[in-house]
């Protein structure tokens, strides 16, 4: 694990796409903060890692998918995407299966990420 990233805001995402609006709400909060110049990092825990899978699509009723939003994060200078390594392996997901580039974290690095951000929002 290289340096623990620091920042103003850590947004924790714990829900996958489509089942509810937590993921979109969390990403929205991250984008608002970034639009106002905050240094924002994302931490994907548990089912939140499903948000990162390639080949996601819009919902059966035409609900927007989250992949375009994830790809847009870089335009908001949100570059730090931390992903719980165990949550990936529990689901048989490899880093190559993800649609954006991420940093894997586990164990103490997760607590470290929380400690090194001024604010935390949990979604």
């Amino acid at each position, binding site marked *: 694990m290289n340096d623990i990233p620091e920042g103003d805001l850590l947004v*924790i995402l714990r829900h996958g796409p489509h089942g509810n609006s937590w993921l979109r709400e969390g990403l929205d909060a991250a984008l608002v903060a970034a639009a106002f110049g905050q240094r924002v990092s994302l931490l994907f825990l548990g089912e939140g890692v499903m948000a990162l899978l390639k080949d996601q699509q819009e919902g059966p009723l035409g609900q927007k998918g989250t992949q375009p939003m994830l790809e847009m994060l870089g335009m908001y200078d949100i570059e730090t995407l931390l992903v719980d390594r165990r949550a990936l392996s529990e689901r048989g997901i490899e880093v190559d299966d993800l649609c954006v580039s991420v940093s894997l974290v586990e164990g103490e690095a997760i*607590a470290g990420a929380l400690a090194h951000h001024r604010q935390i929002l949990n979604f």
Partner: protein
Amino acid sequence: MILHILNRSPSASRVFQQTLDAMGPEDRLLLIEDAVQGALPQLVRYFEPVIGRLFALREDLASRGLDGRCDSRVMVVDVDGFVTLTEEADKTVSWF
């Protein structure tokens, strides 16, 4: 030090595991709402890693008839104690 606040029972939801994973060595955990069931001696094992830093909210215990049934290693605080815990923490994180 971060105050983590959990409101789901460990016997109904696995959110407690994420909470524990995210806790640093000095962080504290406060059980509120349904999570206070985790203060029972039969369920407190889920919180073994944070014994000594584990709190439960008295008002939520009392409303469930659990005040007095808590494991002795759980520190019971009332709402004023909740406020104090919040003041002592750098920040708080809610898990739900």
